[in-house]
């Protein structure tokens, strides 16, 4: 059984018209003797082991080529020889900052193939944990983008405020970073006593933290001078390259899979706003993620009020053999759109899992985006696109 893809928004310009621009060269007639700089696999600004081979003319970038693969761990190959619970453990580690969100589309695909529906309470808890992961990773983004631009303090505030979310996830699932909580048919355990009120308190802290980041970073004139009009992604080009998530919403495209895609988890029952910004520059990407953090906190509070009582696991056999079929599930992860294509041949493990990770497509726009900018702007753009190497390389 496979799903139909939701329709993409319509664009006037043929995105393939921009393809030649990736090869454009700046200032080549001056022939000033370029310098090749390796923003190498080890660099504080590349969020991991991304290598950018940059040709510079003074401080201007002529061309930039990302070299990825330093962190390839072979998830799709590993998934060929493991059962569904084992794969759930492994895929936690693809995007390690928001690890619960990685499990959701995979388990959703397996449940579709088995024609099993998780009970409502399990769906609510899954959605709450997904939104908590989104808040956790975005709070860290708000801090560390300040760090890349030069301010030392917001990074520490990001880590400090993320602790509240990690403590919540740990008290519910047992693991701070890698919850490994989804099972086919529901979730593993119910919530511990007092979790709901702790979460409400933590959401208040998140609102305060967002206000601090708005004043300290987004309101800072120097930050605005560093990020406004830097790295503008035109909406048609972004969609053509496959950029997704907050990066595309910051260019004005009103597209969010939680609202527009195939309904999954409990998002159809929730009342939330999708934030967009018309500019498309780095400041817009920061601003959109700031607003989405607040929106996620509001969604969590809504879900805590609406959460039903009941079982958390549907009736599934002890040894799960998923019937034959193919399923494609795409969800709105914090980094963008993440999708899993699961082919099952009736065994305890899938035959093939194909992972569409968000950051892989987000990074593909870098050669186009980095032409003609200064070296400090390269860092700002990398920070604002917010990719995780585990997500690019899988």
């Amino acid at each position, binding site marked *: 059984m496979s799903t139909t893809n939701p329709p993409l928004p319509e664009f006037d310009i043929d995105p393939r018209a921009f393809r030649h621009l990736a090869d454009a060269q700046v200032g080549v007639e001056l022939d000033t003797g370029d310098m090749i700089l390796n923003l190498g696999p080890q660099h504080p600004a590349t969020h991991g082991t991304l290598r950018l081979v940059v040709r510079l003319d003074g401080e201007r970038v002529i061309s930039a080529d990302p070299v990825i693969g330093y962190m390839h761990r072979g998830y799709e190959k590993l998934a060929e020889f493991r059962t569904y619970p*084992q794969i759930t453990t492994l895929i936690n580690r693809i995007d390690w900052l928001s690890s619960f969100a990685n499990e959701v589309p995979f388990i959703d695909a397996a449940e579709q193939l088995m024609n099993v529906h998780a009970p409502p309470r399990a769906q609510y808890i899954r959605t709450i944990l997904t939104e908590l992961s989104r808040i956790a990773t975005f709070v860290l983004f708000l801090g560390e983008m300040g760090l890349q631009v030069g301010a030392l303090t917001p990074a520490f505030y990001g880590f*400090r405020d993320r602790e509240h979310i990690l*403590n919540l996830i*740990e008290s519910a*699932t*047992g693991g701070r970073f890698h919850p490994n909580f989804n099972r086919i048919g529901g979730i593993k355990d119910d*919530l*511990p006593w007092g979790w709901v009120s702790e979460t409400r308190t933590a959401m208040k802290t998140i609102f305060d933290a967002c206000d601090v980041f708005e004043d*300290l970073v987004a309101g800072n004139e120097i930050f605005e001078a560093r990020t406004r009009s830097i790295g503008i992604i035109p909406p048609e080009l972004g969609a053509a390259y496959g950029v997704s998530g907050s990066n595309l919403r910051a260019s004005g495209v009103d597209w969010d899979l939680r609202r527009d895609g195939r309904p999954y988890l409990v998002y159809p029952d929730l009342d939330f706003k999708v934030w967009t910004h018309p500019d498309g520059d780095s400041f817009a990407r920061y601003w959109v993620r700031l607003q989405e953090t607040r929106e996620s906190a509001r969604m969590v509070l809504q879900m805590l009020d609406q959460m039903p009582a009941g079982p*958390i696991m549907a009736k599934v056999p002890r040894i799960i053999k998923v019937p034959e079929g193919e399923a494609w599930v795409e969800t709105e992860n914090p980094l963008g759109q993440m999708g899993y294509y699961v082919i099952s041949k009736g065994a305890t493990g899938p035959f093939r899992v194909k992972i569409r990770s968000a950051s892989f497509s987000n990074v593909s726009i870098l050669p186009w985006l980095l032409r003609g900018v200064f070296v400090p702007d390269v860092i700002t753009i990398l920070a604002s696109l917010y990719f995780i190497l585990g997500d690019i390389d899988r």
Partner: protein
Amino acid sequence: MRKPKLPGVIGGLGITFKTMLKPAVTVQYPHEREDPPTRARGVIALKEENCTVCMLCGRSCPDWCIYIEGHKEKRPPRREGGRDRTVSVLDRFDIDYALCMYCGICVEVCPFDALFWSPDYEYSESNIAKLLHDKRKLGEWMETVPEPEPLEIGAEVKK
């Protein structure tokens, strides 16, 4: 969005100044400790008398870090005139914590409740070979296993 207020640069200075005056959030680790929650996955404990050497945990581990060896023994029958019983005896149950991913699949699949999670996390070693905990050491971890905590309102109570 432009209201007449302090320029953002001044507001930012105010925030760092206020944070400087508030107490720091650091927990000075060796001298003070934060207790992890009850469900935290710190270390796996083995209750040897429940284990029947069914090997389910070893097979379900994604990393294959559990090493199990056992043999069958004959025991006298429980009542007079019955058949001899065959009992599985555990020879070796090692968990290699250098490989363990702390996923919890082994604890979950065990049908006889022989494996438990404990939130204890302070067992780091300087020699990597010492991270292979044998069944005696895994039995010692049983003392640190907490009672399961009550569940939140709305949870289904298993009868």
